[in-house]
């Protein structure tokens, strides 16, 4: 691979002072970025740093608000909807875009079938697919159906598809997130083969060790700003983590009231095992806010759903208020005083086609009965109380929940959960996709609940949130708890190091 600095190679694709706003919310600020032929250029940054947006702009899926894109030395406007593929810029999405029922060969040629008068030349396509897969040195049967392949093989098919389109720039969004170590090695071999042929690779990853192993250069983004573009050889895990984090705590968060040292343990989890999680053990004390940090997919939601009985096949011990319990469904966990607030507001939390009232009381309809009938007047009173308590703002009570803003939906969901008067509340991404003002309100509600003696598990991918609210933090990685942080140890660097798996390897 050629050197990157001072080499007389011109960038194949470059972003010049790119800015992007969604509505009034800016997400990228004047980013300069380029990638050379035959180079691997990695982008790292926290969730929400702007990595995905930058990728989408570089592949035409989003248009920049200002700034220009240069491709092959010329200033261009990239066509939308993946049409930039025809120009040689291919984005491989994190959730792979393959039709599960098609064969490998059909997937590779999808939309560009070799045909004469509408009749496909199957034999030629098969030969070409075989040749293509051979050049990649992967033993995938071109006649296999996509849904019989492993995730790694599917990724190889995506790569083969990209090559068959003569990709000159290949953009990969967290390609290794779902791969095993061995599969990752195979992927890296492919990437090296591609770069040897002059293909430029842009690579997003949360795994710093891989980035340093594979990339020539690394660009660090934080809060939509370009922090630095450095040679990978000049980077250590520590400097990378420092660059990715390092903001100041704002006054978004209410002051922390540590629970009493002798506060009783209300929830004790021992050796919890379920699909995707292993040997989860922790205690939650009364009045405590216990943060759960980790990357997306590290198993935090799986832990919550295993505890409240949403998952089948759960092993391990659960002790609530000193009594061993097992919850087979949500009704049982609610009866046990434990409620779970899903992160998927619209998909799992609220009936978006219905009004506020039926949504609020859905969990607790049995408390609004007169005889066998639902007492709507009692429901309306509950709604009035919830609207006041959680400051839910709706134009009027008849609007459908889908028409509310994300923040008001979240507050309604909180109200719905609190209707069941739980003692232990597991909140999964309680501020995802809502504005900062409402976030602050929710932070204060969470702190107030804890001060009242409720015990809270806070799952969040926003480190600031975990740090600003939690009395104690568990960090998860690959379905396991890899660290427990308390007091001053609750800081971004510590959490990032744990969730990246570098703690212990490169301790400062």
């Amino acid at each position: 691979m050629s050197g990157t600095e001072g080499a007389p190679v011109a960038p194949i694709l470059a972003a010049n002072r790119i800015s992007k706003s969604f509505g009034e919310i800016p997400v990228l600020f004047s980013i300069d970025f380029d990638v050379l032929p035959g180079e691997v250029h990695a982008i790292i940054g926290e969730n929400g740093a702007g990595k995905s947006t930058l990728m989408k702009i570089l592949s035409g899926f989003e248009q920049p608000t200002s700034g220009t894109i240069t491709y092959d030395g010329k200033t261009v406007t990239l066509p939308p909807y993946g049409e930039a593929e025809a120009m040689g810029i291919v984005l491989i999405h994190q959730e792979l875009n393959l039709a599960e029922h098609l064969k490998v060969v059909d997937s590779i040629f999808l939309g560009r079938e070799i045909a004469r008068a509408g009749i496909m030349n199957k034999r030629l396509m098969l030969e070409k697919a075989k040749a293509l897969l051979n050049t990649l040195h992967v033993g995938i049967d071109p006649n296999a159906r996509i849904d019989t392949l492993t995730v790694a093989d599917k990724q190889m098919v995506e790569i083969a598809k990209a090559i068959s389109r003569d990709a000159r720039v290949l953009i990969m969004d967290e390609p290794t997130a779902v791969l095993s170590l061995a599969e990752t090695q195979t992927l890296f071999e492919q990437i090296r083969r591609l770069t040897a042929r002059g293909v430029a690779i842009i690579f997003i990853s949360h795994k710093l060790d891989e980035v340093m192993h594979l990339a020539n250069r690394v660009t660090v983004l934080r809060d939509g700003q370009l922090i630095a573009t450095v040679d990978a050889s000049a980077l250590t895990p520590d400097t990378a983590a420092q660059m990715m984090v390092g903001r100041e705590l704002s006054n978004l968060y209410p002051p922390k009231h540590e629970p009493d040292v002798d506060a009783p343990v209300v929830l004790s989890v021992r050796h919890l095992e379920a699909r995707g999680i292993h040997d989860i053990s922790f205690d939650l004390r009364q009045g405590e806010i216990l943060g759960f940090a980790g990357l997306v997919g590290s198993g935090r939601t799986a832990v919550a759903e295993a505890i409240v009985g949403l998952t089948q096949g759960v092993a391990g011990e659960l002790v609530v208020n000193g009594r061993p319990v097992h919850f087979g469904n949500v009704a049982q966990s609610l009866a046990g005083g434990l409620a779970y607030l899903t992160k998927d507001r619209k998909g799992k939390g609220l009936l978006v086609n219905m009004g506020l009232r039926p949504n609020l009381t859905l969990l607790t309809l049995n408390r609004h009965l007169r005889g066998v009938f639902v007492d709507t007047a009692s429901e309306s009173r509950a709604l009035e109380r919830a609207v006041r308590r959680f400051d839910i703002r709706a134009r009027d009570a008849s609007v459908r929940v889908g028409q509310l803003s994300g923040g008001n939906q979240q507050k309604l969901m909180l109200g719905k959960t609190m209707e069941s008067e739980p003692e232990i509340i597991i909140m999964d991404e309680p501020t995802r996709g809502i504005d900062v003002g409402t976030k602050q309100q929710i932070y204060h509600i969470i702190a107030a609940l804890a001060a009242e003696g409720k015990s809270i598990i806070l799952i969040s991918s926003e480190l600031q949130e975990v740090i600003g609210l939690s009395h104690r933090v568990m960090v998860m990685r690959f379905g396991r708890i890899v660290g427990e942080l308390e007091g001053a140890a609750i800081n971004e660097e510590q959490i990032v190091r744990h969730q990246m798996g570098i703690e212990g390897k490169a301790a400062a």
Partner: protein
Amino acid sequence: MTTTAGEAAPQIRRQRLRLGALGPIIALVLLMVLGTLLNGNFLSFGNLANIVARSSFIGLIAIGATFVITSGGLDLSVGSMAAFIAGMMIIIINGAVPGLGAGWSVVALGILAGLAIGALGGAANGLLVTIGRIEPFIVTLGSLGIFRALITFLANGGTLNLNMAANETYSPLYSGKIFDIPVPIIIFAVVAIVAEIVLRRTTFGRHIAAIGSNEQVARYSAIKVDLVRLMTYVLQGLLVGAAAVLYVPKFGSANSSTAVLWELQAIAAVIIGGTTLRGGFGRIWGTVIGVIILELIGNILNLQSLISPYLNQAFQGAIIIIAVLLQRSRRTAN
């Protein structure tokens, strides 16, 4: 300023809502006007009572279908299940007559058997959908075939006839009148009122709508999704049984062409009535109007000579498609 805006918005919405709710009623009125133009006696009490009484079989089934469809399910087997139950009832009554005579006890036995078989048939559909995790479309398409074959088999390709003496005891249940109102209309009305209350005022009804609106949300909200689903199919089966209970005294026989395409009529009535095909919202009174609309269309086709009454089911088929199209355009407009 804010107050005026706040007042204006709900007013507009309320109007639109009322228009949507009024749709079936307007169609009903238009059909009545059309019927009167064709025949001066159309609006006579006798003719209307006759129409409603005839619609009571489909009506009972459509009420059950409203529950199933509101929960996001579908039951295509109702027609052949009704034929099968009618056949079973005739066999059971005929078999019991030699031992127990042709009195009300035998008829009651037949009625109970009909309701029980209906509930069991519904439970079979429901269990395959919930425990078996099979699409309701496939489950009930399969049971549609099974029930239809069973009635043909039971009748040995011909017709099962109810014992004459038992028929005499039984027939007042269809032809009788209380305060001048035909018995089937009373049964239909009572079932409709109870069903409307169940759907609107009980936790069961609320849970049905929640599951139809979003099954995941229901599951995360501590609702026993499978049990509620199962119960909608049991209820549907029970009401199919009730329809058969009214059918047997009217016709006194059952064969392989009994109740053919009743599923089309029942589902069409539900959709015309404003229940959303994808689930989440249902209204029984709408279904009742939908059933009567379909019966009126059939009646009007018989009154005129321009369009062949043989095309009746083509109208039903077209109506169901148009009604769903209208539902969809309303959704996209929102």
